[in-house]
């Protein structure tokens, strides 16, 4: 029996300038995968690319990607299809503003939905056929516990993440026959740029731990998971509060 070398794969990281994206790229590269870092700030991503390539000795590429620029996504996906390795996808771009700010400024509200929801739909609709054709692969999406219930403090962002979670349920069913797993990671508080200095955070998890969980959960082919997993309990309680009471809460 002859052993064949494991097939080289590439992790496509959409939203790679986040600290979670950087940690994920380092980790996946250490496990031998090539990396494509996709995002808006390509100057910064070039620095991350150098770091990841040097530390792990893998091939790292940087590609410009704007989640809101829907029209560019078809070409972006076509370029991905032309790579000579199979791809796995980590999607983590996202944007969050204070609820009050989006209440007063529809542009901010629209951007929140465009990035967190429509942007994800737009790129994933274009990448899905590639994954199907590939016949295997993994998609892991960093979503949020905010999508589990609309809260006074955060319902616009939450609604976009909630819609994303529903979309991923359907996409999971679509890609399942092709042997492609879809993992939704519902994260609680993470110690990233998005939250640094925000009041009211507790049990904040590090980007490295989050990245490791995303990789591990998708390796296992898990469908949905909370990270850190105690958020399952917190969200079970929050979801069980009856609406007549919940509407009186300002959380």
């Amino acid at each position, binding site marked *: 029996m002859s052993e064949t070398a494991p097939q080289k794969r590439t992790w496509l990281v959409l939203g790679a*300038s986040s600290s979670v994206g950087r940690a994920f790229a380092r980790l996946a590269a250490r496990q031998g995968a090539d990396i494509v870092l996709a995002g808006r700030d390509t*100057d910064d991503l070039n*620095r*991350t690319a*150098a770091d990841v390539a*040097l*530390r792990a000795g893998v091939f790292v590429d940087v590609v410009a990607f704007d989640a809101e620029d829907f029209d560019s996504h078809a070409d972006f996906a076509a370029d991905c299809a032309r790579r000579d390795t199979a791809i796995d996808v980590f999607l983590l771009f996202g944007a969050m503003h204070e609820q009050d700010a989006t209440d007063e400024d529809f542009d901010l509200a629209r951007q929140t939905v465009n990035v967190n929801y429509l942007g994800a739909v737009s790129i994933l609709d274009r990448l899905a056929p590639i994954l199907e054709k590939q016949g295997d692969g993994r998609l892991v999406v960093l979503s949020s516990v905010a999508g589990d219930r609309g809260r006074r403090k955060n319902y616009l962002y939450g609604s976009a993440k909630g819609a994303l979670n529903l979309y991923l349920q359907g996409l999971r069913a679509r890609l399942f026959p092709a042997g492609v797993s879809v993992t939704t990671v519902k994260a609680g508080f993470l110690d990233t*740029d998005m939250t*640094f*200095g925000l009041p009211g955070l507790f049990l904040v998890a590090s980007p490295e731990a989050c990245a490791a969980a995303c990789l591990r959960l998708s390796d296992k082919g898990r469908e949905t998971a909370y990270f850190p997993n105690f958020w399952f309990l917190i969200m079970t309680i929050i979801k069980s509060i009856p609406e007549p009471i919940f509407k009186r809460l300002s959380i």
Partner: protein
Amino acid sequence: MRFKQLELSGWGRTTAAAVSAYRPERISAAADLVRAAGAENVVAYGGGRSYGDSAVRTGGAALLTERLDRILAFDETEQVVVCEPGITVADMQAFLVPRGYSLPAVPGTGFATVGGIVANDVHGKNHDRHGSIGDHVCWFDLLMADGTVKQVAPDNDGDLFAATIGGVGLTGIIVTVCIKVLPMPSNAVQVTEMRVRDLDHFFELFAEHRDRATYSVGWIDALARGAKLGRGVLELADPSPAGIPDKAPRRLRVPFDMPGILLNRLTMSAFNEVYYRRVPDGGEVSKKSLTAFFHPLDALHDWNRLYGRAGFHQFQCVVPEEGGASGIRSLLEEISASGSASFLAVLKTMGGEGRGHLSFPVRGYTLALDFPARAGVTDLLQRLEDITLDYGGRIYLAKDSMMSEAGFARMYPALREFRAVLEHVDPKGLFMSDQALRLGIRGPGR
């Protein structure tokens, strides 16, 4: 632009400063802070391993560099590494050592950052042989007070280069550094330890070994008096051609502030006695991993909490070789008479001056030790400063928390050049730390 209100203190934890912390994850975001800062002071905060107040400004902005931690280039032909400032010494070593290299100067903790070690021009146990880190810096990118980033090398702006090496963050934020690395044949060193009877014995051994061994450091029992004054252990080491298996380091943590009373003369003396006796009479040779050799204390996380809530002061001075032996003797006599020293003191030789205006090293002897913050320590530190001055020595800014303004000015003769550079690159005094204010580093009344 979002800030987090934090109380930050140096490693000695004697004072805490309320700061607005800002944590950029990319260089452009660091520049945003500097451009937005207006009248507010800014200072970089790396690993927070300086003992005093050099990385904080009360009421100002602390630019936390921890997320600027990327390695940008590694050139084996030129033997240089280029990186961001927030990468820790331990992470950098974890990258370099398996590739056959080391940082040329490694401080006693791996939690210090590369930006921090450049800003203090740190020295390691190989100072005689290889000098301090600034001797190996090829260039750096400096984020300046006007928000622009300038690449600085000795031959394009020698003054700004000299002001920034050891410049304790006052010229700006170092955002990229290029360092010439040192070939290192394996992950281990061959260590020889020997018992040293007293201070004279130390100086004899230094004279014999300082130019032979790559690494050398002495550990002194600073509580020993009389005939035993200066007794201790001398550690000499050279790179080992063959490595040793990598073990995952055991990590322990001090979970809370220990009651300060536990560190008293009795427990300290006992500890020092054991440390001295540990080395057999005839000496001992062993192979140690570079990590264990460079960073023995890092295995015990938050060890500064051993000193209790009040914290501790660290004192480190260097006295020039000429008259240095009697200088060290005077210091040790003063210290042992006070009885307030704690664990082991470090005594080692230094090879020569650094390239920075405020670089600490001078050819001679350096002595470093901790004092729990208790009644009387202020007077003791003042007396030690006076003795240091009498012998033409200087106190290390990385360790200082109590020096006098006048003493500081006498110790650092290139202060005038340093101030002239600041006047030029940061006339409004944007970059400022509590230490700089306390010591009047920027000049009187600034």
